[in-house]
C-alpha cells in the first residue's frame, strides 16, 4: 500500500579494507499495491537490494523512500514484512506463537490487525496451531513465516527467494496462495526469485539485474490479466514474456547459442 522509490542507489561493501560495489546506480519504482519481481544471477545484489529497502543496510549512494519516508521510518512503524529464503522460525515456539511474535514485539493496541488465528487460516495451517516448526514440512514452515510477515499488516512485503528450497509442485501451489494473500491484503510486494516462469507469473513487472557490479539491465512489464491461473503459463503470451526475460538475463549469450 506504500509506493517504494529507489533513486540512483548504490551499495558498496568493505572487504579486506577495499570497497567492493555490490549495487551500482539502481533506480526503480514499485507502485503502491503492485507485485514486482527481481530476477538475476546469484551475487547480483538482489538480497542486498531487499535489505536496503528493509533498512537492514544503508545505501552508500542514492535515496530510498517508502511512502515518501525513509525506510527507517517505515520500519519503526512496522510497515515492512520480510520473508527469508529459510523459514527462520523460532524452534521453541509453536506455529501460533511464531506468528504472534511481531505482535508481541510491536505491542500497543491490536487495532485492525488480523488476529493470529485468522492468519493461520489464511496460510492454510488450521489444525497445526500448536505444532512446533520441527514437526512441519518445509512448505508449511514457509507458510508460517509468510503469516508472521503479515502479522502487523505491513504496507510492504519483501520476499527473498521464499520458495527457493521447495520442490516445483509445492512452489507453484505456494505462489498461487501468495497471490491470493497479496490480493486480500493489498500490500506492495517485491519478490526475489531466480525462476523466470515464477517472475512472469507473479509480477506486474519483472526487473532484471546483472552481476559484477550488480545493476539493473531491463524491466519487462507483464500485462497479463489477474487473477492469474496456472493455465496462463501455457499461453503464447506468457512464453513471449518469459523469452523477453530470458533475453535480458542472457543477452548475447543467447544469440550465440541460437546461431551455433
Amino acid at each position, binding site marked *: 500500500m506504500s509506493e517504494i522509490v529507489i533513486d540512483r542507489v548504490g551499495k558498496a561493501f568493505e572487504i579486506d579494507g577495499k570497497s567492493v560495489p555490490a549495487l551500482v546506480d539502481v533506480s526503480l519504482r514499485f507502485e503502491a499495491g503492485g507485485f514486482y519481481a527481481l530476477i538475476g544471477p546469484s551475487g547480483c545484489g538482489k538480497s542486498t537490494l531487499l*535489505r536496503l529497502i*528493509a*533498512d*537492514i543496510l544503508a545505501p552508500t549512494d542514492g535515496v530510498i523512500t517508502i511512502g515518501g519516508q525513509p525506510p527507517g521510518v517505515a*520500519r*519503526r512503524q*512496522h510497515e*515492512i514484512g*520480510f520473508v*527469508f529464503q*529459510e523459514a*527462520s522460525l*523460532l*524452534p*521453541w515456539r509453536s506455529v501460533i506463537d511464531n506468528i504472534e*511474535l*511481531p505482535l*508481541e*514485539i*510491536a505491542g500497543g493496541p491490536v487495532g485492525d490487525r488480523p488476529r493470529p488465528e485468522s492468519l493461520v487460516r489464511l496460510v*492454510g495451517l488450521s*489444525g*497445526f496451531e*500448536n*505444532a*512446533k516448526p*520441527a*514437526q*512441519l*514440512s518445509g*512448505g*508449511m514452515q514457509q507458510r508460517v513465516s509468510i503469516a508472521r510477515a503479515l502479522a*502487523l499488516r505491513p504496507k510492504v512485503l519483501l520476499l527473498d527467494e521464499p520458495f527457493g528450497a521447495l520442490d516445483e509442485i*509445492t512452489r507453484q*501451489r505456494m505462489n498461487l496462495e501468495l497471490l491470493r494473500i497479496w490480493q486480500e491484503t493489498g500490500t506492495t510486494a517485491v519478490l526475489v526469485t531466480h525462476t523466470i516462469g515464477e517472475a512472469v507469473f507473479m509480477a506486474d513487472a519483472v526487473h532484471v539485474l546483472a552481476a559484477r557490479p550488480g545493476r539493473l539491465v531491463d524491466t519487462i512489464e507483464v500485462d497479463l490479466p489477474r487473477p492469474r491461473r496456472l493455465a496462463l503459463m501455457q499461453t503464447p503470451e506468457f512464453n513471449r514474456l518469459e523469452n523477453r526475460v530470458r533475453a535480458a538475463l542472457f543477452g548475447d549469450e543467447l544469440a550465440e547459442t541460437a546461431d551455433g
Partner: protein
Amino acid sequence: MAEAAAPPGGRGRPPRLAGILAPLAVFAVLVALMEGLKRAGVLPVTVPAPSEIAAAFGRAHGDLFYHMAPTVLSAAAGFVLATLVALALAALAVGWRPAERPVMTLAIVIDSIPLIALTPILMVWVGNGLPARIIIGTIAALFPLLVGTVQGLKAVDRNVSELFHILAATRWQRLRKLAFPTALPFLFAALKIAAPLSVLGALLAEWVSADRGLGIMMIYALFSFDVPLTWLTILAVCVVATLAYGLVALAEKLVLGERATSIVGGR
C-alpha cells in the same frame, strides 16, 4: 495443503526397564569382583572391600549425613551464584561488544589459577566460614558456565536477528525473546558440567579449612588411617556430584522438552 507432515503432538518413549537394570547389573558385578579380589588378597591395604565400606556406613552414617549437609549447601549456593554471575557477565559480553574481550580474558585468568592455591589466600581474606566455601564453589563452576552462555547467546540465527531488527525490537526484547531461548540448550550443557565442579570446589575448600563438611571428614579419616571411612566419604562425594548432575539433567528435560536432546545438528 497436500504436503505430508507429522501430526502435531509429542511422542514419548516408554521408560525401558532394561535401561535401568543393565547399569545396575554392571555395578553389582564390579562390587562382587572387588569383594572377591580383596578376599583373595590381591588388592592393597589402601583399597577396602565393599563390605568394609558398607560396615563403615553402618557405624558412621550419622557422621556422614552431619558432614554432608554443609557440603551440599555450599556447593548448591556456589552453583546458583556461578550461574547468576555467568548469565550477567555473558549478557554484558554479548550485549556490549567492547566488554567481550576483557570479560573473557578475566575469566580465563581466574580459571587458570589453581584453586588449591587460591583457596588459602581467599580464606585469609574473607575468613574460613561458609562465604569462602561458597565463593570457591562459585569460581570452580564459573568458567564452563560463562563459555557456554556466551556461545549460546551468540548462536542466534542471522535471519532471525535481522527479523528482530525489522520489527524494531528493543535490546531487552531481543535478549528475552531471542538470545536467551537460543542459549538455553548451551546453558544446560554447561550447567551439567558445572554442577559436579561446584561440589568439587566446596570439597576443596573444606579440605583447606572447615569444622564441618565431607572434605574435613575425608581428611580426618585419611589421617586416622581409617581406609573404609575414607572410601565412604569419597563415595558420598561421588553420589552428591552425580545427583547434582542428575538434577540439572532433569531440569533440562522439563524446561527444554524435545529440544533437550538436539543441541547439535538441525536448525
